[in-house]
């Protein structure tokens, strides 16, 4: 009973106190018990999971197919359900029914564990994503850093998949993928540091709160420093590479490596790797929005009596804004995928080590000076 009572008034009245908002939805869930069983504790992680499932179905798979169709002047899925809306559900049903095949020469434990670790790695970061001022799984004081580090564990899973499959395409894919992920972690981390430095905290909620204010979008970190937008672009590029998305999709490179490190996977294991990729895309998009684009803060300003910012702030609005921002970058990632050709391995490394990293270091120093003496 209590949670609902808390939900509604907060959503309506929280406009007055956006900055000091507490994680009250999560607190409400925590105390939720059914017949003495603390179901609330399990409900907190379940919410992002359900959200991700829906998102991956509709924005991820369906959206990607529609976007690609649009860009290639096709129609895309249109048979199953209205506008093909049921297509992904049909696909999932098919995937679930598939036989779970483990190749005879595969290293069985690694082959089975690999997708699980990728999946867990991709989802563990959701614990620190602030979905609104009232909802964040855990507002760690090392939030962003945690997200970065847990994602790097995915690389282990990828290597396990590639090695366990005992297939040379898989191994090539895994080796490429890991080289790429580990390399691009460096410019990505430096770019993140720029954002963290501007907010003065590693905690996700504090970073978001440091960007809220009357003028909406003008308080966003990206407009607070002359170099923040460069950091944002670097992070976006590195995020593409870390999610193994085109134009950095050389790990799966269909035209040369069949399907990269998941060549041998089918059925639900394949679905898990696939889901993990979409989960990572959304996660990096949200981190980008949190660091540079104000997270759950409304972009609209208060203009005199027309308090657009106040009207569009609050826990529910916050969730709306951050999911909108996240989806926007997911769509941009798809757009990029269907626009640019794939990089070669050496070009990829060149871009990372000789272009992005030096630029990131330079703007890092510049941003530090700006923070100290100008802002």
């Amino acid at each position, binding site marked *: 009973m209590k949670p609902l009572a808390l939900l509604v008034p907060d959503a309506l009245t929280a406009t007055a106190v956006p900055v000091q908002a507490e994680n009250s939805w999560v607190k409400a869930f925590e105390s939720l018990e059914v017949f003495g069983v603390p179901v609330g504790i399990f409900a907190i992680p379940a919410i992002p999971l359900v959200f991700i499932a829906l998102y991956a179905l509709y924005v991820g798979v369906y959206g990607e197919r529609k976007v690609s169709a649009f860009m290639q002047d096709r129609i895309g899925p249109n048979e199953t359900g209205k506008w093909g809306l049921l297509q992904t559900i049909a696909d999932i049903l098919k995937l679930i029914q598939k036989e779970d095949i483990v190749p005879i020469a595969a290293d069985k434990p690694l082959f089975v564990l690999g997708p699980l670790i990728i999946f867990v790695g991709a989802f563990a970061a959701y614990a620190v994503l602030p979905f609104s001022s009232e909802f964040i799984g855990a507002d760690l004081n090392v939030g962003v850093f945690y997200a970065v580090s847990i994602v*790097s*564990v995915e690389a282990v899973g990828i*290597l396990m998949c590639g090695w366990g499959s005992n297939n040379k395409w898989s191994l090539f894919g895994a080796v490429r993928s*890991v080289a790429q992920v580990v390399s691009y972690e460096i410019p990505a981390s430096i770019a993140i540091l720029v954002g963290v430095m501007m907010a003065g905290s590693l905690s996700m909620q504090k970073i978001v709160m440091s960007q809220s204010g009357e003028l909406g979008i003008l308080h966003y970190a990206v407009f607070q420093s002359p170099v923040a937008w460069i950091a944002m672009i670097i992070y976006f590029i590195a995020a593409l590479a870390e999610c193994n998305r085109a134009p950095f999709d050389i790990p799966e490179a269909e035209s040369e490596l069949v399907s990269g490190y998941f060549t041998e996977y089918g059925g639900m294991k394949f679905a898990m790797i696939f889901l993990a990729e979409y989960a990572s895309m959304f996660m990096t998009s949200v981190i980008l929005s949190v660091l540079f684009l104000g997270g759950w803060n409304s972009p609209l300003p208060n203009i005199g009596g027309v308090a657009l910012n106040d009207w569009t702030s609050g826990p529910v609005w916050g969730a709306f804004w951050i999911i909108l921002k996240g989806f926007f970058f997911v769509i941009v990632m798809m757009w990029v995928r269907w626009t640019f050709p794939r990089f070669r391995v050496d070009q990829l490394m060149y871009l990372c080590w000789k272009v992005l990293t030096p630029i990131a270091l330079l703007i890092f120093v510049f941003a530090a000076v700006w923070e100290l003496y100008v802002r």
Partner: protein
Amino acid sequence: METVSFILFSFLGALVMVGSIGTVWSRNPVTSALFLVLNFFALGGIYLLLEAQFIAVVQVIVYAGAIMVLFLFTIMLLNLDDEQALKEKFDLQKGFGILLGGVLLVEVLYILGLKINLPQKSTTLTPVEIGEAKNIGRELITNFLFPFEIVSILLLLAVVGAIVLAKKNFSPNT
């Protein structure tokens, strides 16, 4: 809460043990390295229990995420997977080594089992605050400024050394 952290500690401690024994025991280098990843990960968890969040995350990102991945990477590139490569024969020296190691282990366990009064350090910070990035950073650039800076020489040396040892076509110049 005490029991929860005790259960967590026991679980993570067991994982650390499994990880380190598996690292030494397994014949396949890939499995061995993966056990080491498990070990590092569980160790990160133990750091978390000690309220050292920053160190825990560093442990995961540096060891489990970067170093071990490069390790695995190298093992896979070298294709060290045949078990013969690591097989050793058991000889007298090894037996003696195991004996001595065992004695040392028992001794150390015995001593650590004794009740030892450890010195208490007084501090105004709570354990959680000590683990925060802010306080670690402050220590690093005040009290530990010199070691922090001199480590850069170590890193520089490592870079120069690695290039000298590993670069292709590194020809002497006069």
